[in-house]
């Protein structure tokens, strides 16, 4: 069964208890193997914490330092309740995209679990953070901790000066728009706390000056004609928070700075939302590969492998759609299946693989996998690498739910006629544009009531949901003049929302 005869095995440990020496020993061995496989990582900072601290980390979305806000308290209470009642186990690990890469290990874990977590987080996720183009483009791992400290200090200073209530209101509103605080295509400057501090004052002055220009209430007479033709903004803007930060007429400078902080954090988390399948798949593939290599070299026992495989299978199970606990496609399972299949295609290509993936079949699997990690996000990753084999294994099928028809249509299944369509459908499922309503700032009534108009371009006729008006109230709180949202389908306005609601005569 194993490459090493029983007598030659020299396991690092045999019991289930961990010690600091053992954790270090495992980390050394796993790290050495990771290097052989060419995984390029940031330095690791492994922190051992208690379960209560894990709950804390949960509530603050894994940020090691967070500003204070009631919503984190809510998440904390929620997690605590679920944990105490046994509805939820704690994740074995949390890992933070920073340099050094911080990974939390829970004290309660057995030695096997710690080794699994080290392989998964410290070498899997870590190399993904360092290698994937989205993370490279959008986040700056070296400065995030400093920036979080800056944000926390800035916000608590605002609380001292302007009161907790006032700060909380701004944060509430910003959080509601957090998903619309990202530049989807432009590359932002990397954030640096030092720079932020230096620039912050400068920015206050600059914005105020520019604003005054924009909102000059007494235009010179000859300018009026041109101005009335002018459209503002000239192009629709997708980054709502950015637009508000720069253009909201009545925000105080500190309020703009808070908008900016939330926007920067949204930007930092944006890549994570777009690469869940890849990131988890990659980390799972590597914990599986690294620990199996440990076993092949006789460094761990059979018992270790049994325990590891039990939790490995637990995490990577994909329930079928008709299972009562089914909750969509498991990103761990899908990602792992695709990476695993890429390796298989390189090592044991079939005729089908050669036809579908001529560049990959029979190639160097390490190179192929690294490319598949580096240059994609979930959407393009699925489109590029989801093979017929994986579709068959997972028995994927597409369902169309059209509200104009009484029944669901099974549009494609895992057969020759359906592979391409299933793949396209699944890919678009990971497109952020399809997931969230596409909303942009289209106009501001500069010379009139200063109202702000947002436009929603419907995707597949999907209308806006029930909380739209609540969110608009938050936009109104920041903009402080009337806010309208028009939901359009094929150029025709289907729904209109306004805050404050127009008084009916």
């Amino acid at each position, binding site marked *: 069964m194993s490459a090493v005869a029983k007598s030659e095995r020299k396991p690092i440990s045999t019991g289930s208890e961990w010690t*600091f020496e053992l954790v*270090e020993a495992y980390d050394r061995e796993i790290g050495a193997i990771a290097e052989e496989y060419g995984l390029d990582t940031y*330095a*690791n*900072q*492994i922190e*051992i*914490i208690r379960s*209560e*601290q894990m709950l804390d980390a949960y*509530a*603050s979305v894994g940020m090691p330092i967070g500003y*204070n*806000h009631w919503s*984190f*308290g*809510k998440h*904390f*209470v929620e997690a605590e*309740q679920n944990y105490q009642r046994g509805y939820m186990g704690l994740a074995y690990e949390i890992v933070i995209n920073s340099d050094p890469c911080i990974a939390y290990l829970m004290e309660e874990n057995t030695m096997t679990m710690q080794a699994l977590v080290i392989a998964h987080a410290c070498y899997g996720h870590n190399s993904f953070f360092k290698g994937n183009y989205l993370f490279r483009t959008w986040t700056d791992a070296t400065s995030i901790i400093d920036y979080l400290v800056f944000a926390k200090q800035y916000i608590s200073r605002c609380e001292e000066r302007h009161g907790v209530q006032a700060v*909380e209101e701004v944060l509430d509103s910003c*959080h*509601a728009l957090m*998903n619309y605080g990202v530049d989807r295509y432009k590359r932002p400057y990397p954030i640096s706390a030092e720079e932020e501090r230096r620039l912050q004052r400068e920015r206050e002055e600059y914005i105020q000056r520019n604003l005054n220009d924009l909102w000059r209430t007494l235009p010179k007479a000859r300018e009026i004609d041109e101005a009335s033709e002018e459209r503002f903004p000239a192009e629709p803007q997708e980054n709502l928070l950015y637009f508000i930060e720069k253009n909201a007429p009545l925000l105080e400078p500190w309020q703009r700075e808070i908008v900016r902080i939330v926007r920067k954090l949204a930007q930092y988390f944006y890549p994570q939302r777009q690469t869940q399948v890849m990131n988890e798949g990659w980390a799972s593939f590597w914990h599986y590969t690294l620990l199996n290599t440990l076993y092949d070299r006789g460094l761990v026992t059979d018992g270790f492998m049994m325990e590891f495989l039990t939790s490995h299978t637990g995490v990577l199970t*994909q329930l*079928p*759609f*008709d299972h009562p606990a089914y909750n969509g*496609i498991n990103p761990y399972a899908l990602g792992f299946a695709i990476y695993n299949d890429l390796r298989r295609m390189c090592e044991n290509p079939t005729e089908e693989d050669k036809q579908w993936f001529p560049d990959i079949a029979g190639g160097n699997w390490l190179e192929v996998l690294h490319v598949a990690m580096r240059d994609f996000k979930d959407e393009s990753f699925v489109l590029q690498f989801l093979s017929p084999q994986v579709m068959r294994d*997972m*028995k994927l*099928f*597409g*369902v*169309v*739910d059209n*509200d104009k028809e009484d029944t*669901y249509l*099974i*549009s*494609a299944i*895992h*057969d020759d006629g359906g592979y391409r369509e*299933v793949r396209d*459908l*699944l890919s*678009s499922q990971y497109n952020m544009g399809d*997931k969230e*309503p596409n909303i942009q700032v289209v106009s501001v009534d500069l010379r009139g009531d200063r109202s702000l108009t947002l436009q929603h371009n*419907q995707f*597949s*006729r*999907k*209308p*806006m*949901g*029930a*909380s*739209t008006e*609540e969110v608009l109230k938050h936009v109104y709180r920041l903009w402080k003049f009337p806010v309208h949202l028009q939901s359009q389908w094929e150029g025709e306005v289907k729904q209109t929302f306004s805050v404050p609601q127009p008084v009916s005569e």
Partner: protein
Amino acid sequence: MSYLIDRRENAKNKNMVNRRRFMERYKKHIKRAVEKAVDDRSITDMERGEEVTIPAGDVSEPVFHHGNGGERTVVHPGNREFVAGDRVPRPQGGQGGGAGEGEASDQGEGEDDFVFQLTSDEFMEVLFEDLELPNMSKRHLKGTSSFKYEHAGYSADGTPAKLSVQRTMRASKMRHIALNSRRKRERQALQDALLAAQHAGDEVTLRRIGKALEELEKGIKKVAFLDDTDLRYNLHVQKPVPTSQAVMFCLMDVSGSMDQAIKDMAKRFYLLLYLFLKRHYERTEIVFIRHHTVAKEVDEQEFFYSKETGGTVVSSALKLMQEVMDDRYSPDEWNIYGAQASDGDNWNDDSPICSKILTESILPQVQYFAYVEITKRNHQALWEEYTKLEAAHPEVFAQQHIRSVGDIFPVFRQLFAKRSAA
């Protein structure tokens, strides 16, 4: 490259501020739940935490999301019998069911209410928020003297059990350095000379130096590893700990007119009072006195549940209270609280006597005396008397009227409301 850090001893309550803010924001809901709990709960489990339910709409953090409708396509795993082009009936009843629902319901609509547990501390805090004990001046009276051992540095003598190994070894090391440093220096010099002599092959000098070295080594070894003077012991001193203590007198009328319902209300009132005192004093004792025409000190069980009949002489209870106070609870050592509950019935001639006992011997000695009248009828002579008393001693005496269970908590809050003037 990895660093391993043990963070287990770090503060674990990073989210305390956030949790507090969350509670602050939903105070309204929490207060309502606590007040309801006070009315609903059986008397024995007042001290537990409480579950608070907040409607989902109030705690949600809204974001833009898609509503139902339009055309949505979803990929699912685990196909068994479908082929392309199949039509399946739409599952009825909307949320959560089967294929096709997937994305639509994962945010926004159909959320459950937000339910969470208050800890018993938080529960009590909300329960007694804005309340205070009047006349706390004596609060820090020294009670039965208790002592606490405190660390007070190190001493040169003590019992072996208190030996401080670290300090002892440090002292030993110091002694070694002090006594041997000259010899060690000389030894070094001799060793250097020895090497030189070996080099030069000077036998005589070698022998001489060897002898001197031997002497030195002997001297160094003579310095004992541990000496009596090295020993250090942890020193602990006894410190008296002032304890604040209170006694609460519960006086209740158990004559025929007091039915079980009234007694239950009285008990709820006493319980609140007890919990409240317990929060302020390290030690709280209770004396139960029940009375009809004669008064008797009883235990809790008898106080609340035994049945009695007959007329009512309130002064008998007050007299007994005074006796017990004189006997066991000197006002120099105890903070004394009195709470009396009755349905207002009293022997008409007795009420002025009550007033007299209170004024002369009880009120000067207690921190606070509260009277609650639990009745739906009109007030009688006792209430009238007490009204005068309240006017004369507003600082230590108060009375309130309870008609139904719902009044208990508000009345309690009134009796102990913070007095801004005081």
